[in-house]
Structures are given as structure tokens and as C-alpha cells.
């Protein structure tokens, strides 16, 4: 079940050798082609020739989101524009977007990496892939699209939204693979279970979900509601797009395609690399990209790397599913809180819809956390006591998981805004003062 067996199963020694050769070439290229990096190297007193082993990676400068903004639009490109075939960009909600470019070779590499992901979760040319990631400047849609075509499966380029149509085509086309954000997959499931589909005509068997952090409990829900294997895919446009890493069918962390990327985990405060098994911020170096390579890009995603061998036979190390981001992390009364922790508590109860919103406010010098939870049919009763009891049990569980107390506010179904892309889970009123 490999797409590029040679690379997916190569020995660790060979892999490290390949990485080193590619890293050396990358550093050379960045130094000579991208003024930004030349300057950074000079600041650190490093020359490309100083990279003598893979371990020297830790002496190289980081790249941040801010750096990419500062060099808007093409300052980080390492090839002339006539070689750039495609541009993608982040939504740029805070100022200028981040622009990334791809050469013909980059697009091919990307397609093959996505094909690897599809193949490793059992997809084949017989499959119909309904691609409900957004098309356009966002890398999700087109990234999955080309990978599916390279694999040879049938792609339905429906993009996000238009739920009725999604469900109709899913039945009429016999969709077997669904690709979208986990939140949207759950929304679709909700609608499907509300009587909007004929379950005999649903052929779905795999869901490939990414573009936002999600929890194991969410996976369980998706697998149960759709009766599928829910697979986590990872990627970000700054590094490539979807296809940087993906889970195999063992669902035990995502294999990072190490022949193209070097992942690191660093302590976000000291910026020191952390050993395998320790939690920290993910950092990626793209080894093979021509148009827009990045050196030690700080993703702000929080993860852990595991080097133990996977039963699928792939030698590439695995990263833990992203359960939070450094910029998604709320600090409430000095405690780190991630929305995904709340999500898993809610799903663990199984009595509530996993639609929730964290509202943080400051009363005097005290932070208040209110968790709004949509009431579901399953948990609702005609007795006030029943609902109050649920609130009490939720509060107790949140306290034990997060270490802080929160007010639980039960709200009507569908009263928390749905999103077709990434869900909004936080309203931090402290920032609005």
C-alpha cells in the first residue's frame, strides 16, 4: 500500500543521508537566491559551507509568519517569476496575506505526496473522492484535487459549502472518500442524520480531514456517524499544503514525509529543539521545494514527534495529531487551555452536540470562562433537575481536565454559528478592551 515505496520505506540511514544532501543544497540555494536568508545567515555568522551534518540544522535561523508577511508578496521566492506556475495565499485576516508559489516540479511533488496520503489509507483509482475543501487561494482544495488525479481516482471538485448538493452528489455519485475539515464533516453528518440522506445509498468509507485541530473524541464521532475511517491529514501552505504528513491506517500519529521535510519540535519560549516524545511547537524545513522553500518554519502548531517503528512499514517518523496551536491557546488564570480539551470532554459525555464556544472575559482581575454548549435531543429532558445535573457533571469534568472552573451555559441547537471551513471556538473579550 505504498505510492512511492522506495522513499516511504527507506532505511533511517539512507533517509538521513538523503536529507543531508538535500539540506546542503537547500541552504546553498537560499543563501544565493533569497536576500532575506542571506541576511539572516550573515547575522548569525553562518556560511552554507558550515553545514557539515544534519545536526547543524539547529544552528540555522528560524522563519516566522511575520517574516513571510514582511517579504510580501514574492520576497521569499527562490526562482524567477517565469518559473512560478501557481500562487496560493493565506486568507490574511490580519493584514497582508502570506503568498506561496510553486514551480512545475513543486506541483508534481505536491501531487505525489497527496497521492501517498490517499494510497496509504486505502484509496485507489476505483474511488470517488468528494473534495469539499475550499478551492481557490487556499491550498486545501487544489492540493487534494491534483493528488487525487495523480493517484488516478475520480475527483468531485465540489469545494466547501452547499450542503444539500454535497449530500445529493454523495448519494448519486457513490462517493467513497470525503475530504474536508472535520467540523464540516460533522455538520454534514448532522444534516445527513436529520433525514437528509438515504443511508443505503451512502458508500463512504474514508474521510480525510484536516486544516484545523481536532480531538480523538471528534474522530470517534465522525467514524460512528459516517461509519468510516476518519484519517488526519496535515499540511500548511507555508510548507506545502495538505500532504506534509498523514496518518496511515494504524491511526497512530501522522507520518511526516521526511524525504521532503525535516520536522522538529522546539520549546516555543527558549527555541531549543526538544527530543522525541516531548510536546512543543512544530517546525518544518522544506527540503525540495523550488519556488518557495522554507527554513525552520515555526508553525505555531503544538505536537510531539515519535520515532518508534510503525506497523505499516513506513520508516518516516510520526507526529501527534495537532490538538492545539500556540495562538489558539488561551491562558485563563494562568492555566493553558485548548479548545480541543473542552471538545473531548463534551464528546466524552456523548450527551451534547460537539458544538461549543469558549467565551473568556475579565471581571475585575479575575478571568471568567464560559463554555456555551448546544443542547442535543439525547440529553434534553422535561425536568430542570436533569439539565442542571448535566451542567454540574460537565463543570466537574472540565475542572478536572482543564484545572479551572468554568460556567457551563446550555444553548439552543444551531445557535452557535456553523462554519464551512475552520470553526470559531473562542471569543476572548479580554482582547477587546
Amino acid at each position, binding site marked *: 500500500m505504498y505510492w512511492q515505496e522506495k522513499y516511504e520505506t527507506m532505511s533511517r540511514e539512507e533517509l538521513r543521508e538523503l536529507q543531508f544532501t538535500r539540506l546542503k543544497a537547500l541552504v546553498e540555494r537560499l543563501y544565493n537566491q533569497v536576500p532575506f536568508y542571506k541576511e539572516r545567515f550573515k547575522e548569525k555568522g553562518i556560511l552554507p559551507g558550515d553545514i557539515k551534518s544534519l545536526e547543524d540544522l539547529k544552528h540555522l535561523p528560524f522563519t516566522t509568519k511575520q517574516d513571510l508577511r514582511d517579504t510580501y508578496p514574492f520576497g521569499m521566492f527562490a526562482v524567477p517569476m517565469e518559473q512560478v506556475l501557481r500562487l496560493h495565499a493565506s486568507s490574511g485576516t490580519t493584514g497582508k496575506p502570506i503568498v506561496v508559489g510553486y514551480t512545475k516540479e513543486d506541483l508534481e511533488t505536491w501531487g505525489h505526496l497527496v497521492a501517498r496520503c490517499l494510497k496509504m489509507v486505502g484509496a485507489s483509482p476505483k474511488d470517488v473522492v468528494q473534495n469539499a475543501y475550499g478551492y481557490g487561494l487556499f491550498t486545501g482544495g487544489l492540493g487534494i484535487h491534483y493528488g487525487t488525479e495523480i493517484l488516478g481516482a475520480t475527483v468531485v471538485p465540489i469545494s466547501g459549502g452547499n450542503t444539500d448538493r454535497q449530500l445529493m452528489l454523495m448519494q448519486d455519485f457513490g462517493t467513497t472518500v470525503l475530504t474536508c475539515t472535520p467540523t464540516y464533516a460533522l455538520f454534514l453528518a448532522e444534516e445527513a442524520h436529520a433525514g437528509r440522506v438515504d443511508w443505503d445509498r451512502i458508500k463512504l468509507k474514508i474521510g480525510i480531514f484536516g486544516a484545523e485541530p481536532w480531538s480523538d473524541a471528534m474522530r470517534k464521532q465522525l467514524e460512528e456517524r459516517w461509519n468510516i475511517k476518519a484519517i488526519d491529514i496535515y499540511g500548511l501552505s507555508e510548507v506545502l499544503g495538505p500532504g506534509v504528513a498523514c496518518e496511515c491506517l494504524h491511526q497512530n500519529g501522522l507520518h511526516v514525509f521526511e524525504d521532503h521535510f525535516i520536522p522538529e519540535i522546539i520549546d516555543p519560549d527558549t527555541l531549543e529543539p526538544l527530543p522525541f516524545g516531548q510536546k512543543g511547537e512544530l517546525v518544518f524545513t522544506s527540503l525540495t521545494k523550488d519556488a518557495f522553500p522554507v527554513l525552520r518554519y515555526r508553525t505555531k502548531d503544538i505536537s510531539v514527534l515519535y520515532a518508534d517503528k510503525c506497523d505499516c512499514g513506513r520508516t518516516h517518523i510520526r507526529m501527534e495529531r495537532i490538538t492545539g496551536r500556540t495562538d489558539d491557546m488561551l491562558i485563563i488564570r494562568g492555566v493553558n487551555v485548548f479548545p480541543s480539551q473542552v471538545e473531548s470532554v463534551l464528546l466524552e459525555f456523548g450527551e451534547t452536540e460537539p458544538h461549543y464556544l469558549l467565551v473568556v472575559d475579565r471581571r475585575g482581575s479575575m478571568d471568567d470562562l464560559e463554555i456555551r454548549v448546544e443542547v*442535543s435531543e439525547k440529553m434534553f429532558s422535561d*425536568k430542570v433537575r436533569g*439539565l442542571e445535573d448535566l451542567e454540574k457533571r460537565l463543570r466537574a469534568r472540565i475542572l478536572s481536565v482543564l484545572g479551572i472552573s468554568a460556567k457551563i451555559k446550555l444553548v*439552543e441547537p444551531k445557535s452557535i454559528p456553523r462554519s464551512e471551513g475552520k470553526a470559531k471556538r473562542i471569543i476572548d473579550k479580554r482582547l477587546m478592551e
Partner: protein
Amino acid sequence: MKVQQISVFLENKSGRLARVTEVLGENGINIRALSIADTTDFGILRLIVDDPEKAVPALKKGGFVVSTTDVLAVEVDDKPGSLSEAMRLLEQAAINIEYLYAFVQKNPQKALVVFRVEQVDQAIRVLQDNGVTLMPSQEVYKM
């Protein structure tokens, strides 16, 4: 003898109760009795309507969380002490009353009280064995 009561979850914000009545009205459903239990954050609206089978899907379609419960409609003489008799009978049978509410009917000599208990069948037996009148569901819906 069991009467279907519909319960609806309501957030405590303006317009929600009006919306429920609107949905029922649009679907030609008449309300026979209603009561609201509320806390600071939410309320539970309990309804007896003329056509519960039509009302439940209509409310769900309107986006509300709805549940149905079997309750009893006990007819008591409109005079002091007659309600307490029914309550005492249930208490003696160790049947816990979750809540109750009254509603008016056309016969001014009688009052109608809705009882919500856990052990509905047992309650029916106890009340009927002791000569308490329970109003059949179809009559309640038609009232």
C-alpha cells in the same frame, strides 16, 4: 389515560417563546395548556396541544430541541382539599411527583391538573382504584 406532553428547550432570550407559538400557529396546532419552568439561563416549556404527533416534527423542523413525556390529566372537584387527596394517594403509594400544573376547562365545577410522575402506569392504577377521575388523552386534546 396517558397524555402526551411536549417539552421544548428555550434559551432565556427574547422572542423564543413567541417563536414556538408562531411555529405551532403556522402548522394549525392549538395549545391546550402550557407551563414554563425556568432557571437564570434556560427554560423548559411544557405544552399540551391538540395534535402532538404533528407538533413534534414541526417544532424540530423549527430548530428546537423537543422531547415528549407521558403525563396524567387528573380531574378534581373545584373545591378546597380535592387536589391534596390525589397527591396523598400518590404519596402513600411512594410515587414521586416531579411537577404538576393546572389548567382551566369549560366545566367550571372541575379543575384539571397535569401530573408528571416517573411511574405512570402505577399512578394510573392507584388513582383509578381510589375513584379519582383521569381524563382520557383524546378528550384532553379535544378540549
